């Protein structure tokens, strides 16, 4: 009889511990879930930019590069020696710096960690692990248009 009561008592204690412990965990979760959710910034709807007008041909002289705004992303527009235009994402694939066109070596260069890309966007030296994403450039009626091939 006594033994039975003892057994009953421990299982009751176990049960209460479980309920209180579980309640505590639930309480902690209900406090921290909103806090962590608050920390994650909401997605700001991005205007879907598929193409932009970069300017007139005459704005760009051969052997130069310029950073243009493509929506919220920087894109580098390069006019090569032969007058041909090329455009790439200007965000270095290494650590997110913004690249520039180097007239002396005729390559795309990132000042942060000395990474270089050739004029096909391929990473040719330094730390960048991936090539730069290429954008399509169309020239019509003396106007340069950059088009996102993925969009």
């Amino acid at each position: 009889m006594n033994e039975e009561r003892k057994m009953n008592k421990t299982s009751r204690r176990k049960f209460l511990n479980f309920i209180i412990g579980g309640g505590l965990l639930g309480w902690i979760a209900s406090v921290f879930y909103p806090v962590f959710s608050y920390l994650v910034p909401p997605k700001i709807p991005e205007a879907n930019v598929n193409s932009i007008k970069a300017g007139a041909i005459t704005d760009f002289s051969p052997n130069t590069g310029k950073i243009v705004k493509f929506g919220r992303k920087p894109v580098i527009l390069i006019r090569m020696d032969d007058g041909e235009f090329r455009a790439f994402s200007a965000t270095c694939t290494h650590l997110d710096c913004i690249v520039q066109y180097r007239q002396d070596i005729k390559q795309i260069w990132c000042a942060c960690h000395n990474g270089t890309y050739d004029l096909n966007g391929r990473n040719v030296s330094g730390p960048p692990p991936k090539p730069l994403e290429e954008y399509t450039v169309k020239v019509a009626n003396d106007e340069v248009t950059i088009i996102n091939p993925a969009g």
Partner: protein
Amino acid sequence: MKMNWKTNKIYEWLDKRYELTPVIEFMSKKKVPVHKHMIWYYMGGVTLFLFIVQVLSGILLLLYYRPGADTAYESMRFILTKVNFGWLVRSIHSWSANLMIFFVFVHMFSTYFTRAYQKPREITWVSGFLLLLLALGFGFSGYLLPWNELAFFATKVGTDIVGAIPFIGKPLMLVLRGGDDVTGATLTRFYGFHVAVLPAIFTTFLVLHLLFVQRQGMSEPEHLKNLPDAKKKWMSFFPNFFLRDALLWLIVLNVLLFLAVFYPWDLGFKADPFAPAPAGIRPEWYFMFMFQTLKFLPAHILFLEGELVGILAFAIAGIIWMFVPFWEVRPQGTAKIHFMNIAGMAALIYIIIFTIVGYMV
């Protein structure tokens, strides 16, 4: 203690309520061992002094600084050009920040080489290491606040490195940046970290760290521990050591003012998210050795990205360093060379060489 009648009355009133006598008794009995390496005892105090300078000058800057991509740089220029002594307060804040990190490193390595981290001061060492990490966090977040070109790209790189950590990296980067890119939202967050989150955590750990030191007293170096008590020399903490501390603080304050006045800190150019990174982009000097290491790593090591390998290596090294008191290798028998000295020297030389190389390349 000699006190006039009035202070005596006040003291009695307080003592009845808060039992001050045992505390004063404890403090009056505090002793500091006197020996040839005792100069290192002052390094933590200097760091503490510079932290106090940081708090005070930081509060002054808060009165005019306005966070935000369109206001931060402009408000800094206002502080530097229009506010009375604004240039001085800002320059003191920047110089004191750098000196503080420098003295944190001096304090840490002197603790390491004198083996003051040994039992019973393991937790003091760990709390000190956490304070170092928090101080680096202060440096990193504060660097962005003027919203200039160099800081903008340094923050882009720094937070991108965080993003390379497996699993938690990407969400952590998002939380740090307040979005996918470094923008005004990042500035707001860094401002919050710099003036509220970090000071609260830092102060907590600092109080603990100081309490531990007060409770246990200064550590005696090994050669002193083995001396008979009669041969040991002591100095009482109050007032002898305390006054020496105060004198050194005064000297440091003068050096700080000299640097702040004659080498005022530059503001640089305003950050432009659509301009190429300028040549010569570099982080603060205390991140230089890590930055330079990452620069030397190839794009891929085996199947991993070079960056990731570098970050993991530094993280592991940091954890090993943090737990030094718990895995310390003691010399066997009468060995002349101590493994811990070699390991410490290797770390120190690595940091110094890579910092110098970073500035030369």
